[in-house]
């Protein structure tokens, strides 16, 4: 076991866990932040996506020992960011969600895309969102919502 000082959503958090514990389980089990979801556990579905130093990161495969000082942002705080807020509004406006399980990861990836590519093409969206699976197949609405968020964020 080791103790880590984390910066999660702008707050200092201290956890004492096994160094090999994935960030996902530190968020969910130790910090009780359950907005980030467990999907596949092998970075194949994107449900666990959070931002680490601004990079969309699959929290299920990154051990806590490799996070260091880098700030972590989760779905719980993404609405505090203007682009994050625009994406959440667009998700509601387009009624994207069906079962909803994958959607926190979808939103985190969408925000990462829009921060780098404010006006994404269909190809940009397909490439950046290609690692986020939705078993309800809400992909068409996700694309519409990302375009809508891009318009709102102008």
């Amino acid at each position, binding site marked *: 076991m080791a103790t880590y000082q984390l910066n999660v959503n702008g707050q200092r958090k201290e956890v004492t866990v096994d160094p*090999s*514990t*994935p960030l996902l389980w530190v968020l969910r089990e130790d910090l009780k932040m359950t907005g980030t979801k467990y999907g596949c556990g*092998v*970075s*194949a*579905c*994107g449900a666990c*996506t959070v931002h680490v130093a601004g*990079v*969309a*990161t*699959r929290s*299920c*495969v*990154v*051990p806590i020992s*490799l996070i260091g000082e880098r700030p972590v942002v989760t779905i719980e705080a993404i609405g505090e960011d203007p682009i994050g807020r625009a994406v959440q509004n667009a998700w509601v406006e387009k009624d994207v969600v069906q079962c909803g399980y994958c959607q926190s990861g979808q939103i985190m*990836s*969408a925000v*990462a*895309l829009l*921060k*780098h*590519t404010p006006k994404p093409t269909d190809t*940009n969206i397909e*490439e*950046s*969102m*290609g*690692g*986020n699976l939705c078993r309800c197949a809400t992909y068409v609405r996700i694309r519409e919502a990302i375009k809508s968020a891009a318009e709102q964020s102008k």
Partner: protein
Amino acid sequence: MPRIRATNFLISLLVLALGAWMIVSSTLGQARRSAATRAQGLAGWEQVYQVLTHPRCINCHTATSYPQQGDDRHRHISNVIRGPEGKGVPGLNCASCHQETNADSTGVPGGHNWHLAPLSMKWQDLNDRPLSSAAVCRAVTDRSKNHNLDGPGLLKHHEEEALVLWAWNPGRRPDGTMRTLPPLTHQEFVAATRRWVEAGTPCPTGR
């Protein structure tokens, strides 16, 4: 007097003949040594080629828009694509999973500046088949394609580059087993590269 002139002439002739023989024999010797060095260099290159086309190396030297993974060199999971700088795209970067070091507890390999090699350094064709030894050698030694590396630069790259070194410390797979290593040790790989570089980086002929 005529006898002395004739003797002098004969001596001069002998000296000239001896000089010519020394020059010819020295040139032949140099040619033999040069041929031997080239042969040694080519043998060194063939060892280098065996490493470069091992999955630990060639999986990120693709000709396609995606990396590969595993010893069977299958397409990378999660629809990962190359992106403009070989580091994926926003939302799905290499760094979305690959950190500065291997993550053995989750089976994700990592190293500094994890990225795909540029297309100029592709060592496969579009069907993911490794290029020939001659073709890879030509690409590796083409300074317009290899970041302007000369022979010593290539040797230094093989000795020190973080992602080259990673191939000999590739960590564990998600099932906990160790990833396979290239067919030479890193020390042997560097020694083979050195022999090849010292021979002037000769390349095999052919396509």
